[in-house]
């Protein structure tokens, strides 16, 4: 109800016409219920905001909730391809769902624009001409954290992540850039909420810094417990645990923590300033990393629609590849594997009045691609 009427409303309310009259049907599968819903809501809202602002009436949206369950996502993808006959798909938040849906969707000739997940299997030998990642390859932010650790002079890091593929990729990504020694390397349980045992090991390890990747509630739990443990080694991590949506839940425990991100609220470019302001006035909350990714994804699609007709797949693909749109992150272009080449920044968690948020303090990696692009024959 709410989702669909909002989307259709946005499409119908818009009055201007695009250069090409052929409408594009977009199927968005994202997580709108359950524990991971915050991420999906932000991607969806960012995307719809861009569509609304464009005034382009030729986008028809179909939005569905995957409940963060891979089998539901597969079923919805079947529905969108077989019944709704969408042209472009987008929206998936979690890598495991992405792996379940994307290979088969692009094999059936659909375009897929990823607003969040970037599993390594789709960046290297498994890359596909119809698959474009508008967020990052999964390793990127971890690599940036490793690069930052070098510049901050860390030489003995303790690193931890959940024991699942994205967690293993995270530690691999960090180690790819980090040049110091490891004081310890731990895999925790996925969904674990008590880190007393891990913090005790950090305390005993003699490390000079901690890198962690614990998305969602796991990160909140870890940070609260870490702040209270009396261990005060510097902490660095990817932006996922320090994003606008969850920072308020972590509170003062996160203050001063360095995290790496390709986007930040205070990134200084006109597109971003306008985006932050309009998102806040439209939805009454500050945008997150995910919202910016949703917004950029929609603008990429809109830019391609200006140049080519979606029924002409080759032309449309070339138009997407140009990435001729104003990104909230400033410079943005696609690598040969259709993953971003972009700057990744170091942010610090600060307090502005009652609100916890991030500010950029340095650039960790400039014009960074990913380690898998060389394996992509495309």
């Amino acid at each position, binding site marked *: *109800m*709410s*989702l*669909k009427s909002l989307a259709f409303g946005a499409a119908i309310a818009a009055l201007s016409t695009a250069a090409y009259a052929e409408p594009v049907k977009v199927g968005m599968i994202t997580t*709108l*219920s359950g524990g991971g819903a915050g991420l999906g809501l932000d991607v969806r809202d960012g995307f719809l905001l861009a569509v609304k602002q464009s005034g382009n009436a030729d986008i028809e949206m179909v939005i*569905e*909730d995957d409940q963060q*369950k*891979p*089998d539901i996502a*597969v*079923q919805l993808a*079947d*529905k969108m391809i*077989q*019944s709704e006959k969408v042209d472009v798909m987008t929206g998936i938040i979690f*890598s*495991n769902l992405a*792996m*379940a849906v994307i*290979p*088969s969707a692009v*094999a059936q000739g659909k375009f897929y624009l990823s607003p969040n997940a970037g*599993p390594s299997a789709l960046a290297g030998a498994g890359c596909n001409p119809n698959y474009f990642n508008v967020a990052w390859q999964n390793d990127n932010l971890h690599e940036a954290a490793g690069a930052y650790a070098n510049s901050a002079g860390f030489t003995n890091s303790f690193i931890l992540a959940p*024991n*699942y*593929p*994205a967690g*293993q990729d995270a530690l691999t990504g960090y180690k790819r850039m980090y040049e110091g020694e490891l004081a310890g390397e731990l*895999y925790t*349980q*996925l969904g674990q909420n008590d880190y007393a045992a891990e913090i005790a090991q950090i305390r005993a390890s003699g490390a000079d810094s901690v890198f962690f990747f614990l998305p969602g509630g796991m990160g909140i739990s870890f940070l609260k417990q870490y702040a209270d443990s009396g261990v005060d080694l510097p902490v660095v991590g990817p932006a996922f645990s320090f994003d606008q949506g969850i920072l308020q839940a972590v509170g003062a425990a996160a203050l001063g923590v360095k995290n790496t991100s390709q986007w930040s609220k205070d990134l200084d470019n006109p597109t971003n300033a306008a985006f932050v302001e309009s998102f806040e006035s439209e939805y009454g909350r500050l945008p997150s990393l995910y919202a910016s990714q949703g917004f950029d994804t929609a603008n990429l699609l809109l830019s391609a629609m200006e140049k080519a007709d979606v029924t002409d797949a080759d032309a449309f693909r070339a138009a997407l590849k140009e990435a001729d749109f104003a990104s909230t992150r400033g410079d943005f272009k696609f690598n040969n594997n259709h993953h971003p080449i972009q700057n990744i920044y170091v942010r610090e968690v600060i307090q502005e009045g009652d609100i916890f948020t991030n500010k950029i303090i340095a650039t960790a990696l400039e014009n960074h691609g990913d380690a898998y692009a060389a394996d992509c024959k495309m």
Partner: protein
Amino acid sequence: MSERSFNALVLLGLIAFPLWALWADEPFLITLATRAVILAIAGVGLNIALGLGGLVSLGHAAFFGLGGYAMGILASHAQMYDPIMTAPILIEGTKSMPVIWLVAIVVSGLAALAIGALSLRTSGVYFIMITLAFGQMFYYFAISWPAYGGEDGLSIYVRNGFPGLNTLVPIQFYGLTFAILLIALALHWQIARSPFGLALNAARQSSVRAQTVGIAPFRLRLIAFTISGMITGLAGALFADLNRFVSPTMFSWQLSGEIIVFVIIGGVARLFGPVVGAIVFIMLEHVLGGLSDYWHIYLGALLLGIVLFARGGIIGLIAGRGGHG
């Protein structure tokens, strides 16, 4: 309406609906029907333990998941031309459905035998909690064991094959699953009528009385639990093939809960209970899910209503009480 004619109506619907969808060129509706049929098979499996044996298993997702992983592991090795093991004997992956099904049935049957042998030492509420806990054990293992994708699961790019059929055509795959559902139903029907089934029923109603006439409830229940696990495991393999994907969520306890829900919405111990339950569940998911972000609230309220006010499930409402079979 008698239960028998209602069942005939359900079967007719399961034949007519996909044919109509084929005619109307709505392949997704066929996929949706396939999903309902596969979940119904899982429910028929559970119904043998739950309906005939009175064993409330809250861990049947373990068998469903094992069946799924049997498919995923065999097919992923086959698609990479990488044998599963080379020593002491060479075992290769396969893309053939009958072989995969056999493996799925054997593996989930062995697991059911082991879990059953442990948990059937207890009964009642212990049994519920223990089966739940064993299901979780498989879930955590599947998440944290990296060899087969862990949390990410395994993607199979092309659906496995069945001799003489093109399983990629939705209606053909549907026909295959429908045939298996019929076989599972026939098996349930046979068991319910056999001396074994009658003894099982006697043990369900009064364990003590059954023992006095020389029936050993433990063995009967273990056999029923194992058969039940085998059928649910087969459903898991089919489900994995439908999605061309397996992941640890197939082991999740919510799935165990949903399989119970199918059985109860339809009517416990009714032959067609799980079939009706699965169809209704899929329809609800499809309709309610489109209405609201918070559709789980309505689903919960509906389930609550059925438990509190419509004992005997939908078939009980339509066909009246009694007349089990």
